[in-house]
């Protein structure tokens, strides 16, 4: 069993890596880069060399390549020598103007620039100044010297994996002032439960509980799925989906760490679980508030994150679906070819065949006109009411799907020998259905439960778009439309991991539910 799981997990990781590579090939190599300028007004306005340079800066920003400009090289060089007012220095000016003239290769800084980046494996490119016959520079015709490094897919993948996961350890903080270094269980004064607390780690609380979804949090492992280049400028996608969308601060009555145990309370939005190490010197106020140098904090914000919104809608929809779909499916199977079954079949055919858009809009129209429920998520006056329509519309399809399969599996079981045998033994129809048939018919349904739960984290594109729900469902389409390559890769990794995980969990759960099923290849049937 252990060997089987290990093999399976290793294979999953391998296929995940290949998927990431395929996606990287698709977004970075297969699409012509110039599409990002299709609707770019700035690009249209620029001309000559300026346009080329603009293209390179954008390529750099979108993660297509590493790009260094000679001027920024000079900036770092002279800032080191002269400080902030380096622009007024004479050698800076001469070096900067050197590339606008003939014989630019003779300049020392230019030579240095070319040598450094040539050694790093960059490709150098010189854009000659474009001038009128009179000697005046054409608009956008200034000369440029740049160095470009194209990333190959393999290196891109290696870089990605390198930064993928970082774990905090007790030797992380480099500070001679820090004497104690440990990671241990402690009683958490803020939650009343225990927490794993570290000293010498970046964050103080590595694992803790609090009242916010999903109630257990950690700062131990840091997962970087990818960084957004365009839509969420420079933010990591994990932060984007897990921080509340509406940014209102939520204040609670709490105490500073040194004031714990006293009756000195403060109204503040500081999240004391988010404390991380301050390498600078502490102010006097901070010294009275904190017992150690963990003084950098973030704030509690009200509202739900994208992930939470999608998950809440998804999980309630699934609960409704299982609550209604299972009994109805069983009922349909028992009353096969009678009125309930015919009605149920009509519903299944309708839901399965009609485009999802059609019935979601029908539902939206019904809900808004008959029950006056809020239609668009953002404009709802009572926020909780806004969840009703998306949740119900999402459950419509799930109910149909569950009914269909439960009915199918039940009917398949109804003709088995063991049912005839049970009947001949004189068991009541109710007993036969509830304890024998239903139990066997549930096996494939059980397999799908982990997938349903994890699937809630992915969100639902159509439902979220129709009701403008701020969820994760539209992340991928938005990223594709804005060419947010980092997000595309991140979202793919997220989806793929979830789908692989739900397969494995489903298999495990099924094996648990039905002892006849063995995942071990050595035992059982199967070849």
């Amino acid at each position, binding site marked *: 069993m252990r060997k089987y799981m290990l093999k399976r997990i290793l294979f999953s990781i391998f*296929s*995940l890596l*290949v*998927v990431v590579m*395929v*996606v990287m090939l*698709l*977004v970075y190599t*297969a*699409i*012509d880069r110039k*599409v990002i300028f299709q609707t770019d007004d700035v690009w249209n306005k620029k001309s000559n060399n300026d346009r080329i340079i603009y293209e390179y800066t954008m390529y750099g920003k979108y993660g297509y390549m590493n790009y260094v400009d000679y001027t920024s090289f000079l900036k770092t060089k002279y800032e080191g020598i002269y400080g902030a007012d380096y622009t007024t220095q004479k050698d800076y000016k001469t070096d900067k103007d050197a590339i606008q003239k003939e014989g630019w290769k003779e300049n020392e800084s230019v030579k240095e620039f070319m040598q450094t980046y040539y050694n790093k494996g960059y490709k150098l490119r010189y854009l000659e100044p474009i001038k009128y016959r009179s000697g005046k520079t054409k608009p956008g015709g200034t000369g440029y010297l740049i160095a470009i490094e194209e990333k190959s897919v393999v290196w891109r993948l290696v870089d990605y994996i390198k930064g993928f996961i970082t774990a905090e350890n007790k030797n992380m903080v480099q500070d001679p002032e820090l004497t104690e270094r440990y990671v241990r269980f402690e009683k958490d004064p803020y939650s009343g439960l225990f927490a794993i607390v570290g000293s010498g780690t970046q964050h103080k609380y590595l694992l803790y509980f609090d009242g916010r979804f999903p109630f257990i949090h950690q700062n131990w492992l840091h997962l970087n799925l990818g960084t957004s280049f365009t839509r969420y400028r420079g933010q990591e996608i994990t932060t984007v989906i897990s921080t509340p969308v509406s940014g209102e601060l939520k204040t609670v009555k709490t105490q500073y760490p040194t004031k714990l145990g006293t009756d000195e309370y403060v109204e503040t939005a500081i999240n004391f679980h988010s404390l991380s190490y301050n390498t600078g010197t502490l102010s006097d106020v901070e010294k009275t508030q904190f017992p150690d140098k963990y003084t950098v904090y973030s704030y509690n914000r009200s509202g739900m994150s994208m992930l939470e919104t999608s998950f809440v809608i998804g999980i309630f929809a699934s609960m409704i679906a299982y609550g209604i779909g299972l009994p109805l499916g069983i009922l349909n199977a028992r009353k096969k070819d009678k009125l309930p079954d015919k009605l149920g079949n009509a519903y299944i*055919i*309708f839901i*399965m*065949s*009609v*485009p*999802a*858009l*059609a019935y979601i*809009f029908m539902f939206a*129209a019904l809900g*808004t006109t008959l029950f006056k429920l809020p*239609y668009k998520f953002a404009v709802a006056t009572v926020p909780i009411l806004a969840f009703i329509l998306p949740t119900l519309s999402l459950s419509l399809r799930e109910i149909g799907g569950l009914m269909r399969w439960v009915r199918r599996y039940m009917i398949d079981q109804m003709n088995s020998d063991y049912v005839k045998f049970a009947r001949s033994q004189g068991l009541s129809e109710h007993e036969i259905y509830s304890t024998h048939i239903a139990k066997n018919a549930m096996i494939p349904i059980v397999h799908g439960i982990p997938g349903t739960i994890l699937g809630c984290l992915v969100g639902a*594109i*159509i439902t979220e*778009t*129709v009701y403008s729900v701020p969820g994760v469902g539209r992340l*991928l*389409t938005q990223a*594709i*439309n804005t060419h947010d390559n980092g997000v*595309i890769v991140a*979202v*793919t990794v997220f*989806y*793929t991991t979830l*789908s*692989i995980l739900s397969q494995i969990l489903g298999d495990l759960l099924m094996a648990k539910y039905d002892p006849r099923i063995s995942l071990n290849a050595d035992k059982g049937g199967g070849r």
Partner: protein
Amino acid sequence: MNNNTSNLQNAELFRFIDRDEIASEKITAPRYSYWRSVFRMFFKKKINIVMIILLVLLFLAAFLLPIFWPYDPYENVLDAKTYNLKPSEAITYFGSNGIKWCLGTGQLGNSIMYGIWSSARTSLLLAVTCAAINMTIGIIIGAVWGYSKRFDAVMLVIFNIVANVPDILLLSVLVYIIGSGFWPFVFALTITGWLGIAYFIRTQVMIIRDREYSLASRCLGTPINRVVSKNILPYLISVIVTLLATNLPGYINSEVFLSFIGIGLSASVPSLGRMIQQGQTAFLTYPWAFWPPVIIASILTILLYFLGQNLADASDPRTHM
């Protein structure tokens, strides 16, 4: 004596007849033709006949009407007064040609009535083409995949990888590379679309492959391609028809869905998805521009799905008794 009486009795009861050489060659079982009994079962249900007539009418309408009613989404684009007109307003505004304007106008003054038929043609053509290509490739590869264990090992790896690349991503990348006309769109839908079908067929083939009759046939030295094509595939007809029943409306649905999220057919090709996408922005204020394409798409998909399921039921020989 005793013998004599019994002879007499036998003679009274039985009569000797000559051996009939011709009759002994005949098989007395009733003639059975698979497809004839499939259609007998299928047409037993009266609702199927009604549905088929409806579907044929829709097909005819979708393929013939656009010839007489050419649809141009931009014909009134310069006249802002024609935008989003109610059916009654549209008929009074344009005066003539009541049929053309009987469903009102869309957001660019386009005729909804003409639009839905041209769009329905695109959708049907797309569904039939994609289903034909994907099913053919899927069934052939799936049959080999299920039968050959060596091929299975390779294909499983490919399947696990391709199935995990989000469809939307693959489609939109393809649309960027090869454009979004009708045929590029068909290409995008079929380049990986067959893989799911092949995987499904593979599982079915594996179930049947090791049955006794197939094993016996193999022992007698039947070549693999004959085993697959004569022993296994006929057994799968009802499975294949079920697959077709979900696939045909599935392509209409995907076109609607993809247009909705912005990676559908290009604007120059009239399609149900695009009409729905344009109508949905104001579907409460201008319902006449939204519901007709939705209803046409729904009727088409329901008919295809329903008929397909019933044909699949009828094509299962166990129901022929």
